[in-house]
């Protein structure tokens, strides 16, 4: 089986690695690079626990992406959202709105929220819910997650400050 030498920029840091053809981006991130904040939840692109952002804020499933096709790409995981110990406004909104329970979906969910707000800084509730499809949470019933995204939207657009 062919091995591929690739360079990934993960959370702003450049990493060279050698991956087999069948290595998923998820496994490369978790097992080769130690970004265990990206989770395996189903392996088939249904649950969104493996969500990462590519080249900005495009959300994809790490479990359905071959690492070797990602050479030169820039990847953001949840671990890369905070800057100098300061949480991203979306992360802070998740905390402040009690949108986190078991936390297993949280890294993917937070990244998803970032991508929703990047595409549409002032989404309606229905748009938030539509955008959150593909990220399963079994703990919260989504209510507080939706509230957190609304709150983050306000924070990012300066409302209420």
């Amino acid at each position: 089986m062919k091995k591929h030498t690739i360079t990934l920029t993960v959370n702003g840091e450049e990493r060279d690695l050698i991956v087999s053809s069948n290595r998923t981006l998820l496994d490369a991130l978790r097992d080769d690079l130690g970004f265990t904040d990206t989770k395996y939840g189903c392996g088939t692109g249904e649950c969104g626990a493996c969500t990462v952002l590519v080249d900005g804020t495009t959300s994809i499933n790490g479990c359905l992406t071959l690492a070797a096709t990602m050479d030169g790409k820039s990847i953001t995981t949840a671990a890369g959202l905070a800057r100098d110990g300061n949480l991203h406004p979306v992360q802070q909104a998740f905390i402040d709105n009690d949108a986190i329970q078991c936390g297993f979906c949280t890294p993917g969910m937070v990244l998803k929220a970032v991508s929703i707000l990047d595409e549409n800084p002032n989404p309606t509730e229905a748009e938030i819910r539509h955008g959150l499809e593909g990220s399963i949470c079994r703990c919260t019933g989504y209510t507080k997650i939706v509230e957190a995204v609304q709150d983050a939207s306000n924070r990012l657009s300066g409302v209420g400050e």
Partner: protein
Amino acid sequence: MTSRVMREFDLLLPESVSEAITLLATHKDKAAVLAGGTDLLVALKFDYDIDNVISLALVPGLNNLSFDTKLGLTIGARVTIADILRSDDVKKHYPALWQAAKVFATPQLRNTATVLGNILRASPAGDCSLALYALGGTLILENTSGRREVNLDDFWLSYGVTARKDDELAVSLQVPAPSAGQKSAFRRMTRVTEDLSKLNAAVNLQMDGDKCTGARVVMGCVGPTLVRLPKVEGLLTGAIITPNFLEGISNIVGSEIKPIDDIRSSAEYRLKVAGVLVKRVIKQALNEGNDQ
């Protein structure tokens, strides 16, 4: 049952269409083409065994999504569902396709999955495929001997089987330009919002005022491939579409489909509600996409 680690294969990364088709000519049925990969990787995690995966990641020129009032819509092999959703031209001229893209899978999958991939999957439930079936389209296939065109009407042969030859690469899809008075819509039924369709329908109506002068009516999840409903199309053509007329249409849909029982629904239920879905999708088309 999936594996956590896919079986071995070689990943080939051609950098041009010609390189890709040369690889296909070499490996034929021993190779699978990866564009978005959202279906292929799932298959590879199940028991699909393939020696080579030819990725289109580095092939330039396949991202083309363009609209021309004469030529219509061109969709390149790497155009994703998200690209469709972002296109104002698609939203305006091909509402059925835009509506299908809107509910297609999940945001992550929409960012990755390609329109052509959905067509090549030949699933009898494919949402974007169904919308395109209604709109009509021609697939451009290329191999080392050249290009050929296949009308979508002739493309899906049976469940998972298409007219694509092993050595052919589907490079783009051409959707005809919309005519004045063309109205299309897509509608589906699912168990929960994010789900594969358990029943879907799309229409493309040629309207002259209140009168329908031409119709394509297609359904998914009611047979081994997506199907057209010729009787319904025949009745629609030349008709003034009234609520009573639609009830009549609704009642004959069942005679044109052969659904089965599966995980998502039953044959019995599908037969019962198919007419309702067709009725509603026609109304939706006439209401310019507004629900009901």
